[in-house]
C-alpha cells in the first residue's frame, strides 16, 4: 500500500521530522519542509494494522518567545493523505488520536492535560498520531466505514434514498433467479 502524507510544516531552527511506524516497526523517517511537505512510503499490511506517525524532533527550544509572546514555533499540520494515489476522506484522520509528549515546562503550568486527543491534526508538541486500526484489506474496511459515516437526511420522507444516493450491494438473489428461469 502506498501511503502519502501531506503536511504544512512550520520552521523554527529546524523543520519538523516524523517517523512512519506500522505495528511498532519504523518504516521510514522524513524531514517535512516547505519544499518537500509530503512523505511517501510503501507499506506491507498485516492482518491488523496500527499505523502511527511519530513527530519526534520538536524540543522546547523550537519555540521562541519574549514575555510569553511566541515569535516563532516549530509545529506541523497533517492536512490530508492519499492511499494508492486516492484522496482519503477526512474522517480517517479525524477518527485518529494524537498522544502529545508535553514538555516539562508546560506541565508546570498546566496540570493534567489531555493524554489522548481525538482529531488533533495540528501538532505543537512532539508525540504520536495513531490512525484508526484497520485490517489487511484496507479498501473493504474503508468502504464499510465510509458508508456508515455518510449523512443522508430526510430518510423518513424517502426511505429509498440510501440506495438512490449511496448505492446498493443487494444481490437481489431471488429476483435474479426468477429472471434466469425465464431466459
Amino acid at each position, binding site marked *: 500500500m502506498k501511503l502519502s502524507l501531506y503536511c504544512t510544516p512550520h520552521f523554527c531552527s529546524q523543520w519538523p521530522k516524523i517517523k512512519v511506524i506500522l505495528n511498532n516497526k519504523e518504516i521510514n523517517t522524513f524531514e517535512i519542509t516547505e519544499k518537500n511537505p509530503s512523505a511517501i512510503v510503501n507499506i506491507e499490511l498485516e492482518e491488523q494494522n496500527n499505523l502511527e506517525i511519530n513527530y519526534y524532533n520538536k524540543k522546547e527550544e523550537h519555540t521562541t518567545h519574549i514575555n510569553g509572546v511566541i515569535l516563532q514555533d516549530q509545529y506541523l499540520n497533517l492536512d490530508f493523505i*492519499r492511499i*494508492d*494515489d*486516492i*484522496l482519503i*476522506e477526512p474522517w480517517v484522520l479525524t477518527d485518529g488520536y494524537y498522544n502529545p509528549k508535553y514538555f516539562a515546562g508546560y506541565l508546570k503550568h498546566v496540570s493534567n492535560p489531555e493524554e489522548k486527543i481525538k482529531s488533533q491534526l495540528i501538532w505543537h508538541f512532539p508525540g504520536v498520531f495513531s490512525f484508526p486500526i484497520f485490517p489487511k484489506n484496507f*479498501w*473493504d474496511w*474503508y*468502504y464499510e466505514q*465510509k458508508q456508515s459515516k*455518510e*449523512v*443522508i*437526511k*430526510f430518510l*423518513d*420522507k*424517502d*426511505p429509498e*434514498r440510501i*440506495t*438512490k*444516493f*449511496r*448505492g*446498493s*450491494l*443487494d*444481490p*437481489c438473489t431471488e*429476483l*435474479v433467479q*426468477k*429472471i*434466469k428461469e*425465464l*431466459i
Partner: protein
Amino acid sequence: MKKFAFINIPSQELERPPAAAALLSSIIRSAGWDCKVFDFNFFLNKNVSIDTWNMLESFWRCKTLELPKNVKQILNDINEQFYELVKEYNPDWVGVSVFSRFSTVSCYEFLKYFRPKTKATIVIGGHGISAWPGSLPYIKNNKNQKTIADYLKDENLIDHYIFGDGENAIVELLNENISAGIDGQEPVMVRNLDEIPLPSYKDIEPLNYYYTNEPGVYVTASKGCVRRCTFCNVPDLWPKFSVRSNESLMSEITKNKKQYGVNLIHFTDSLINGSMKHFRELNKSLIELKEQDSTMDPIKYMGQFICRTAKEQTENDWELMAKAGAHLLVTGFESYSPSVRKHMGKNYSNEDITFHFEQSAYYGIRNIALMFIGYPIETAEDHEYNKEFLYKYQKYAKAGIIHMVRWGYTGMFRDTKKVEKPGNVEMAVDPNFESKFKNLPQGVRDIALGMGWINKLNPTLTLNERIRRRLELHELSIELGWPQTRSKEELSILYNILNNLNRNKNISGDLEDLENLLDFH
C-alpha cells in the same frame, strides 16, 4: 397587475425546488406580471403519510391503474385545501408544470379537479406534455391526438400548451402572441441564455426542501450537447449547443448562496464540460469567489460529464475542478468496448477512461458511471470488455470514487433509425411486440416498447441474451463490491416484461428458432 399562479405538480424529486418554477416565475415577473409559485408536489407530500405518498407515486408512475378508495378521498381533500390557496391568490392565469412522463397522470387528475372550479386561463408546459395520450390510464388506443397536450386541449381541460423551452414562449403567450412552441407550433430553442432573468426561490426556498446532504438548486449553464450519440435524444430537444456567460452564472451562484444558503449546485446541463473553455472559466471563477469570500467555501457542484480525451485536458483541469468544488460527475462511459463506443459516437479511449478515474481519485471527485448493455453491435467479446471494466477499476469503486454504477435496462430503441449504420446495424422491429405485453402497467410498457428489436447483422444479441448479460454484470458488480443504483428496480421491471412475454408464449431463447422465425426475444 395581472396575476399568474405557477403550479408544480407531482411526481418530482423533493430534494430541491423545481427548476422550471424558479426560472419561469422570475421571467413572468420581469414581464410585468405578479407571479406566485404553488408547489403542489411538495404540499401534497407534506400533508400525507409516507404510505399514501407511495401509493400515489405508484399511480402517477403508472405502476398501478387504480387508487384505493381511501387514498382517492385523501387526494380529494388535499386538492380542495390546495385549491383554496390558489383561489385566495385569485390568478388570471394558471400555469401547470408537467416535468416528465411521471407527471402526466397527476396532471390529468389535477386538471379534472381544478378546471371546472376556475375561470383562470390555463397553460401547461414541460417535457411530460408531449407524451402519447394513451399513456394515461383509462385512455386506450387513442389515435385521435398525437400528444397529451392535444388531448387535454380537445377535452377543454386547458387553454394553451407550450412545447420545448418555455423561457421565450411564456412571455409571447402572455402578450397574446401565439408563436413558436405554443399550441402545436414548432418550438425553437431559447434565443439567448444570458437574457433570461435569474431564477427566484421566493416561494420555494431551497432550505425547506428535503435535501439529502446539502441544500441545493438546479442551475443551467448550457443547453444542448456537443455530441450526437446514437442513443440520445438531447440533440432532438436542443439542436444547438448554447452556453451561458460566466458572469451571469456566477451572479446566480453567488445570489443563491447569499440569499438562500445554497451549497450544492446541480447543473441541469447535458454536459457540464461540453465546452472546455467555459468549463475552465467556471472553475476558475468559483475558485476566485471562494478565495475572496470564505462563506462561499462550502459550494460544490454536480452534473453530467463527458470523459475527455488526453488531448482535450490536462491534470491542471482536474486540480481546478477539485478546488472549485467538483463533487459528483455523472459520466456516461456507456461501454468499455472501444468499438461499441465508437459506433455510439464517443471518441475517447480506454486509456482516457483510466486517466479520468486516476484524476478523480487523486482529487477525491466522485463519479456515477452510466453504462449501456446490449447495444446493437455488442458482441460477446464486447461484453467481456464490460466485465474487464469492473475488474480493472474495482479499487475506485471500493474507495467511493466510483460512487455507483448504473447498468440500465439494456438497449432500448423506440426510434431505431438513429442507431442504424450500413454494414453493422440493420434493425428489425417486432410489429406485434406491444400486443404481447398488454397486461403490463403503462409505466413498464413504456420501457418494454423499446426492447422489441434485433440487429439483423448481430442476431445472437437477442433480448434474452441482452438480459443474460445484464444479470451477469449485476452479479459481478456485487461480487467485486461495486455499489449499484436502481439495479433492483431495473431488474424488477425486466422480470415483469419477460414474465409477461413468457405468458404470451412468444419468447424464445433458442437461436435456431430465431434464425427461422426472426424471433426478437
